């Protein structure tokens, strides 16, 4: 029997059968039924009707294809267009180095693609993921320092605490760095930044500017 999908849902609430709706963000399927995963407002988006062929009297038209089913999704904020953006494998992100240790650099992921994230997710750049060549000779102290802004790529969603990131490409690495004396430095080569006031250089893994 056809039931209208509810407007506000709690996690675990039944939304409808999979024969009637397609699952969107914020929902999951269990035994051919769609359930909500979040506390929020339900949105149903009807797909644009594909222009079908002109009706022919002697042709048997097939049942509506699955793509024609409306998509049901649940979102927290209530605005159907705003989705929680999360870093996925392969995304290029911008992050700030929080602390360094001999084997890895811990960073806070700030921007994913072009979107500024609501929350700061923690990421880790391991020493073997800093560059593509001579991976065992990497010194984290000569690649990153706390406070640097780094462009990196997500290589794994990781465990409960961290995403795993990599800067092993020419265009990945430190894009903004501050010197020991406190002024912003400009890049000189792939491994050096220079302070304009004192003239001293500092070693970093520098990202190639576009």
């Amino acid at each position, binding site marked *: 029997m056809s039931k209208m999908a509810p407007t506000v849902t709690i996690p675990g609430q039944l939304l409808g059968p999979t024969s009637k709706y397609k699952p969107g963000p914020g929902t999951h399927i269990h035994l051919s039924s769609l359930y909500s995963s979040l506390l929020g407002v339900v949105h149903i988006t009807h797909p644009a009707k594909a222009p079908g062929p002109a009706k022919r009297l002697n042709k048997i038209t097939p049942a509506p294809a699955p793509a024609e089913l409306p998509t049901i999704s649940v979102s927290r904020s209530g605005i159907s267009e705003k989705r929680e953006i999360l870093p996925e494998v392969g995304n290029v992100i911008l992050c700030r180095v929080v602390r360094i240790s001999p084997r890895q650099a811990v960073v806070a992921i700030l921007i994913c693609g072009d979107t500024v994230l609501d929350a700061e997710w923690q990421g880790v750049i391991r020493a073997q993921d800093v560059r593509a060549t001579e991976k065992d000779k990497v010194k984290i*102290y000569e690649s990153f320092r706390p406070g640097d802004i780094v462009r990196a790529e997500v290589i794994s969603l990781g465990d409960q605490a961290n995403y795993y990131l990599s800067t092993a490409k020419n265009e990945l690495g430190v894009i903004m760095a501050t010197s020991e004396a406190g002024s912003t430095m400009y890049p000189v080569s792939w491994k050096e930044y220079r302070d304009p006031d004192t003239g001293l250089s500092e070693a970093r893994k520098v990202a190639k500017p576009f």
Partner: protein
Amino acid sequence: MATENPLVLPGDEIDPSLIPTHKTKPLRLGPGLRHVPPNQILPTLAGHLIADHRKNALYVEYNGGRYIPSPSDLVIGQVTRSAADLYYVNLTPYTPNASLPHLAFEGATKKTRPQLANGALVYARISLANRHMDPELECVSTSTGKSEGLGPLTGGMVFDISLGLARRLLMARSRDVGKVAVLELLGAEGLAFETAVGRNGKVWVNSESVKTVVVVGRALKETDEKELGVEQQKKLVQKLIKEMR
């Protein structure tokens, strides 16, 4: 003498006539001074301002309380625990532990590495030290592969001394420039002992007789606490030898 090596406090202005000049060498600033661009030199520590005209260097000689690790310093540390392939070594009570890799000893391979128990003393060189990370040590010289006196210290006893005295003991000409001659004088009196001085304010003394170790330790401590000059050190050594016999 006072105007030659004036006492400076952090932030004091330095008299431009004290800054050495040289035809070819650039001016080098040692510990305790900071260059504020474009052309200001500020002391950051309290001490005597020393100018070395031969090397064209300027620095502040201070007797500070905290040891700040810097690369290629020789230090005496105590092993606190052993992890996967490192030892954690404690240098001072107020800093995080330094790490010493298991393989950073002379002739060490995965099968033949020295077994240091917790609490063992080790004489090591600082290989990496900066503000952002815990210091790292090594007991072997990376260029030659030889230990050159570094490694575990067995027996003996460790005494705490001030950082200033440690620096003076480690100088090449400790008697003339550093004004510390206690160890030489004690050796001249016939005592047989060996010492190791750590820049982190520790001296290790070892000898076959316990009395010798105690006398050497006392001599160093008194020189440090009472700030004895060379003549007073001679008198102290005479007194201690007399008490011993």
